[in-house]
């Protein structure tokens, strides 16, 4: 499976569980597919594929957006939330907080759709919960 295959399969699907997907490949050193799920236009997921995994990442916020004084509390809360949040986990890439899900390279298109929908919902949920820590 590569990004092009995935883009095609997602576009071929009319909808999945009532959600529609909009795909946009992003040019660069590695293939990245930007996928927007339904109404979650502002929080797209970025899908990249490695030798072993399909990585779906949604960007949440940067260090700049976090109230400096509540950073530790927020991190603590993120760790606490990591397990209750279905299928996704918090992570950090550079100065950016993200939420992501990693799937096996052998996952079916249905698994990936499920992941993308859950990830978008989780991203909104996570920002709602963590909003109190943001400027």
């Amino acid at each position, binding site marked *: 499976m590569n990004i092009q295959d995935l883009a095609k399969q997602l576009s071929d699907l009319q909808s999945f569980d009532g959600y529609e997907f909009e795909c946009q490949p992003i040019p*660069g*050193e590695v293939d990245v597919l930007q996928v927007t799920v339904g109404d979650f236009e502002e929080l797209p997921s*970025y899908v990249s594929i490695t030798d*072993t995994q399909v990585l779906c*990442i949604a960007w949440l916020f940067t260090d700049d957006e976090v109230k400096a004084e509540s950073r530790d509390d927020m991190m603590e809360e993120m760790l606490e939330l990591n397990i209750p949040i279905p299928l996704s986990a918090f992570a950090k890439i550079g*100065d950016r907080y993200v939420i992501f899900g990693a799937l096996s390279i052998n996952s079916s298109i249905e698994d990936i759709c499920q992941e993308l929908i859950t990830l978008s919902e989780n991203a909104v949920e996570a920002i709602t919960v963590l*909003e109190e820590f943001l400027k």
Partner: protein
Amino acid sequence: MSILKKIMTAVKGGAREVGELIVDANGTRIFEQEIKDAENHMRKAKQDLTDVMAKQMQTGRKVESLKAEVSEHEGYAVQALEKDNEELALEIAEKIGGLETELAEQEEVYNSFSEHVSRLKDLVKKAERQIKEYERQLSMVKTTESVQRASAAITDNFASSNSKILSAKDSLERIKKRQQNTFDRLAAAEELEAENSDKSLEQRMQAEGIGAEKKSASSVLDRIKASR
């Protein structure tokens, strides 16, 4: 140093810069080479293992046939003694002696092959574990590298399309607003549908003369006349 530690060190040591990579291409290549070497070792060990196992089996067969020959000749010696032919019996006994020496030798060879086999089996297992371990580490490095590059590509894409990355709060607000809109629209549509179905029911009832009747001008006039 563990590979995760190396990755963390690289991330903290300035790999935050866009485009800068966790592990240079050279690092990844060295890893890949190590995996290839380990795979070669394993292939060699497996080849050796089959050779040695074949020899072990051959020797095993030889040991079994020598044992059979010894017991066969022991039977002959008994028969010679039964026929009181001591001389023949002695000759057979000499033969048995020779066979037993050879048997001992072959058993020793067999044992040494067996040891060799178990040593090679251990080696293959070790090589397999090593390869799995290297592959796991390589996958960590490659994933880190891929995520870094993907982030850089996304950031570049925002920059080149002149679109701004929204703050989380703004994104949330917009999404919530859109969801509220959708929700309101659905609710409005439902209300409208409910009204329509009410209205059509009313109409049908009226047609049958059921429910509150509309006051006609003549009925009002009749009422006024009656009260006069």
